[in-house]
């Protein structure tokens, strides 16, 4: 009998083309999905070197990063020079015969949203994109990770990557989620416990009853932030929920091949005796709705908590890091998070812009108005998500509450790059995105990460708000 293996081991082993020694392998890459930033740079490199795309049928591209998310958009974007990336990607994908989901394509959306939605990413596949949040796709049992654009060129030319094998980590979420606690709260809580470097050199599998009970949208949210504690990637074993999710998706297999595929997908679980190099157990009873106070996703606390005091830090380096974050965020230690006034709310991004996210936010926003003086923006994760939301009347709820209802894209997750719009210096923004880094959403902007429900509750009151107190 073979040695018990983790899910990551199984997918890894089934993609080895050559063992290069020193824990390093040449791996087959099943899906290469690129966007206009890394993709256009890599295609330019490929063309300069006079190389070919080895497997066009395994290669996809989409406009999602720098494109405008205002309604009625064109190639023009608020990002300086952004139009060059858009036109380069369009021209070079056309020249190479690569399937591109262009700005006006009814299937366009954020790559990490549409790859599962269209059935392009499938369980058991290896999948790469020139974006760190590629780990999102792990939520459907795909071994997916972000790479730099030179590695993107490598995949274009060879359909492989040279990779060192990560160690195995498992995080078990036991118990049941409390009221108004969602996947976003689970992952923020985890990162606050293990730290922003807590998963370094590991691929993490999320498991346990609370993971099994999540719908696919929630699983994608969890895996989306695996990179925020510096894991190589995150993954969740595919189950019947995953299989049902793929049935009938445009690029998913059909007929006899479907039957063969699901038979294989059902084998994609870690063996019961598999050994993990690191294991963390989280009791969901301990998780309240979360919000970040500082400049790293590890700076997450319960929404009814306070800004921590660096004097209580465990060591000098932690204290300096916390002091720096507190100085950037402009708040005093021991301030209750609920006292923090908010200037803007953003609901969107590859973390939280799927249909269930919009439905949950709409449940809170229904019949209410956002606080005076607040700017609120919603960018659905894809055209398909947007159309479905509109068919349920969700757009009207957002618009009547006072939200801007945008087109899909990375939008205001990242100033300068994505969408090119930032918020103003010193503003506090409650955002459903994944990074609260210094200057991430504009110079001097203070980002607070939370779930769509906490974001909606906050938009209504104008200060960070515990969604449990607002009622449906």
């Amino acid at each position, binding site marked *: 009998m073979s040695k018990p293996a983790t899910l990551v081991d199984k997918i890894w082993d089934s993609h080895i083309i050559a063992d290069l020694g020193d824990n390093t392998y*040449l791996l087959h890459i099943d899906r290469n999905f690129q966007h206009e930033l890394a993709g256009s740079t890599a295609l330019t490199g490929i063309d300069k070197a006079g190389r070919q795309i080895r*497997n066009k049928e395994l290669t996809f591209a989409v406009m999602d990063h720098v494109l405008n998310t205002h309604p009625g958009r064109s190639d023009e974007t608020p990002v*300086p020079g*952004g139009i060059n990336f858009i036109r380069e990607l369009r021209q070079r994908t056309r020249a190479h015969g690569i399937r591109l989901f262009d700005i006006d394509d009814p299937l366009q959306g954020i790559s990490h949203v549409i790859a599962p939605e269209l059935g392009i990413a499938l369980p058991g596949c290896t999948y790469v994109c020139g974006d*760190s949040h590629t780990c999102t796709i792990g939520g459907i049992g795909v071994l997916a990770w972000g790479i730099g654009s030179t590695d993107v060129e490598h995949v274009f030319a060879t359909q492989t990557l040279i990779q060192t094998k990560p160690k195995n980590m498992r995080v078990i979420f036991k118990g049941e989620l409390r009221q108004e606690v969602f996947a976003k709260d689970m992952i923020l809580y985890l990162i606050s416990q293990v730290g922003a*470097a807590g998963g370094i050199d590991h691929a993490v599998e999320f498991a346990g009853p609370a993971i099994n009970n999540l719908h696919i949208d929630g699983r994608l949210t969890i895996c989306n932030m695996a990179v925020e504690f510096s894991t190589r990637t995150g993954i969740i074993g595919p189950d019947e929920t995953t299989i049902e999710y793929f049935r009938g998706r445009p*690029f998913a297999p059909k007929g006899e091949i479907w039957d063969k595929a699901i038979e294989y997908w059902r084998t994609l679980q870690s063996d019961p005796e598999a050994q993990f190099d690191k294991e963390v157990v989280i009791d969901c009873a301990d998780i309240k709705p979360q919000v970040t106070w500082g400049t790293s996703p590890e700076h997450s606390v319960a929404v009814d908590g306070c800004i921590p005091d660096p004097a209580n830090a465990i060591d000098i380096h932690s204290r300096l890091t916390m002091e720096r974050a507190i100085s950037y965020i402009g708040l005093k230690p021991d301030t209750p998070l609920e006292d923090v006034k908010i200037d803007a709310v953003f609901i969107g991004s590859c973390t939280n812009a799927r249909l269930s996210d919009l439905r949950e936010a709409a449940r809170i926003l229904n019949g209410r108005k956002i606080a005076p003086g607040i700017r609120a923006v919603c960018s659905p994760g894809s055209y398909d998500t947007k159309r479905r939301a509109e068919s349920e009347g969700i757009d009207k709820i957002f618009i009547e509450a006072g939200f801007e209802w945008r087109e899909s894209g990375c939008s205001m997750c990242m100033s300068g790059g994505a969408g090119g719009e930032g918020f103003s210096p010193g503003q506090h923004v409650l955002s459903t995105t994944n990074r609260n880094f210094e*200057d991430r959403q504009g110079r001097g902007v203070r980002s607070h990460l939370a779930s769509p429900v906490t974001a909606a509750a906050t938009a209504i009151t104008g200060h960070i708000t515990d969604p449990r107190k607002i009622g449906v």
Partner: protein
Amino acid sequence: MEKFIRIIGVVAPLMRRNIDTDAIIPGKELIKVEKTGYGEGLFGQWRYSDGNRKENPDFILNRKPYRHATILLADENFGCGSSREAAVWALTDFGIKCVIAPSFASIFYNSSFKNGLLPVILKDNDVHAIAHQVEESDGKQMVTVDLERCHVISPEYQIYPFSVNDIYREMLLKDLDPIDATLRYEPQIAAFQDKDRISRPWVYHY
């Protein structure tokens, strides 16, 4: 690119944890499809006090002799966050050839080797000890990083061995092109796909 064998250079200690790639090269600097010319934007939000590139005199890379640094010291999880390879290009364009830290985020770590930048992992205490020695000498004392012998020599002549993946080390020592190296495996890649098309047809037909 040139071969990386051994360097002796000025060291800039930037001893912060979780220095992310948004900090190394801000999003608003990502305006070129090319891989060159990012050095000016390196640590843009920290290095300049406004949008007009007015230098912030307190930032280490704006001070002598650190503005001529070829080695950067940092705390754990260097290069976390966005996969943007421009973070590596900004460092190399500025003149940095080596970053020494207790740990690196994996995408940044992988991209470094493809661009002639050596990321060296040393123990937390050792990185802080070197930083301390450099600061004591106001940056005048240099550090040696030897990839052939896999060690770092501190200003006080302590030798810190490091380990690095054989394949990645070879890439830098000989300035190999990983794509050319992989194309030698073309028969194996083709054989893998031939077999895989039968066992996992859904990957290839949709």
